[in-house]
């Protein structure tokens, strides 16, 4: 691991002031993504600003939304009583991710900014446009079983690995930031970027901009929601395909639907077309199947991940069936 300077920040302003002017400085939250990649020399910050002392770990109701502090641990969010009751999809997504040990360290802000698990990105001896712009993409011609079928480009097909973000995208979450140029509210669905020509640019965040919280709007439908994750082993593995689904059903008719996908997209993937396909339809298998087909209509599978198209469809149908059956 490259050596670095270390300091603790006590206040958000102070943290921003330390990181913003220094291109080689980085925030350190739970460290479970950053330190992992520092050990592999994939990330080599020269200055670490530890934001663990910042008073940003509260989960609290505000007038119109639930505010989750950026430093709230994944385990605390997952087991929070309000979240379990009103946003079960988020609790389930978090509990399906990583292990209890990791969830005790991982933070909300860090989870949104965790890097891809693409093995070519993690291996510095391989070309990767995300890690070294212009070096090429080893995954497109390589073993791409875990890679994206939605949102890829000829530069990059790495998936975004977060489970939490998929649930939050379905819940219309809004990211609150504080940066050298003031505060911003960014809808999570616009926060992550598809790779396009610049896969190294993964989010709209500017250098030094600090995530301070994520807001979940009050939503009457969110209680009827579910996260379904399909993976290579029963637990403690990243998603092959995952689905966050929420339905508002009145008298058997779908009045609103939220669907987001993980494991298949280059960013947490909101399936707007599939949601539209469900509107005002009876909540039955035919409608769910039609929505599933719509969700993967634009899929571009690679040599080894073609199975994800069918897997995604079936996972969507199963998730919607579960939500449809919820009281």
């Amino acid at each position, binding site marked *: *691991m*490259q*050596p*670095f*300077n*270390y300091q603790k920040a006590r206040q958000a302003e102070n943290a921003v002031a330390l990181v913003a*002017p*220094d291109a*080689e*400085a980085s925030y*350190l939250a*739970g*460290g*479970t993504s950053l*330190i*992992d990649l*520092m*050990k592999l020399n994939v990330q080599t910050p*020269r*200055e*670490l600003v*530890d934001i*663990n002392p910042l008073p940003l770990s509260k989960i609290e109701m505000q007038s119109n939304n639930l505010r989750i502090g950026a430093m709230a641990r994944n*385990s605390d969010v997952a*087991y929070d009583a309000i979240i379990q009751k009103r946003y079960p999809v988020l609790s389930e997504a978090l509990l399906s991710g*990583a*292990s*209890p*040990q*990791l969830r*005790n*360290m991982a933070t909300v802000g860090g989870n949104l900014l965790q890097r891809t698990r693409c093995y070519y990105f993690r291996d510095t001896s391989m070309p990767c446009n995300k890690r070294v712009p212009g070096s090429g993409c080893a995954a497109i011609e390589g073993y791409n079983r875990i890679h994206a079928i939605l949102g890829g480009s000829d530069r990059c097909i790495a998936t975004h690995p977060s489970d939490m973000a998929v649930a939050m995208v379905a819940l219309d979450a809004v990211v609150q930031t504080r940066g050298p140029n003031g505060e911003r509210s960014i809808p999570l669905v616009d926060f992550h970027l598809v790779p396009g020509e610049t896969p190294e640019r993964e989010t709209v965040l500017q250098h030094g901009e600090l995530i301070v919280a994520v807001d979940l709007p009050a939503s009457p439908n969110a209680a009827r929601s579910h996260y379904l994750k399909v993976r290579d082993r*029963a*637990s*403690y593995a990243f998603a092959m395909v995952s689905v966050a689904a929420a339905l508002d059903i009145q008298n058997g008719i779908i009045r609103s639907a939220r669907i987001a996908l993980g494991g298949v997209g280059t960013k947490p993937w909101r399936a707007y077309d599939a949601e539209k396909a469900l509107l005002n339809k009876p909540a039955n298998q035919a409608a769910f199947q039609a929505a599933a087909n719509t969700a993967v209509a634009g899929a571009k599978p690679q040599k080894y991940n073609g199975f994800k198209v069918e897997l995604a469809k079936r996972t969507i149908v199963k998730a919607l069936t579960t939500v449809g059956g919820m009281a």
Partner: protein
Amino acid sequence: MKFRLRRRRLGQLMLVSTVATTLSSFAEKTVAQTPIKRTTPMLKSSISETMKVTLQVNGTKHSLQIEPRVTLLDALREYIGLTGSKKGCDHAQCGACTVLVDGQRINSCLTFAIMHTDAAITTIEGLAQGDNLHPMQAAFVARDAFQCGYCTPGQICSAVSLVNEGHAKSDDDIRELMSGNICRCGAYPNIVAAVRDVLEGKKDAAV
């Protein structure tokens, strides 16, 4: 009893020798550090300097002179000489390094020691009260929940935290909530049984 005493004596000797080797390698390391010069004007001190880091481990304060990049696991094993916590993958994928920080289980391999100067750290060495094993340790012995034992310190720390967290109600829950601890010997059924014993309050059965 005799056996126990001898074991403890051996443990002390091992500890002394680890500390001795640690100290000498530590001296080497500090001498060998050539601080890398950096040109960025932001720089306040040169990178790679060691810093004084005080850790509270199993109720004892340890003052270390270490670089910020020393993980908590390496600090415990290489500098403090507590080699109970094991290094398996070094990337939070196996759970062998699990320790408790303020009562919560974490992977000590993916966190820097310097991040935990204000915390109470508990390792496998800190669970027993003198000669009395912690109920979870006793349950592991009673249930034969280990084979080579490499994963065991992490499994036990993790299981202690699992019980405190209070979310496990069934064997399936135990399996799910112990899934961050991999056992290459496959002692899983007995590990589940040991954790279940403690959860159900059958601690005595275990001793």
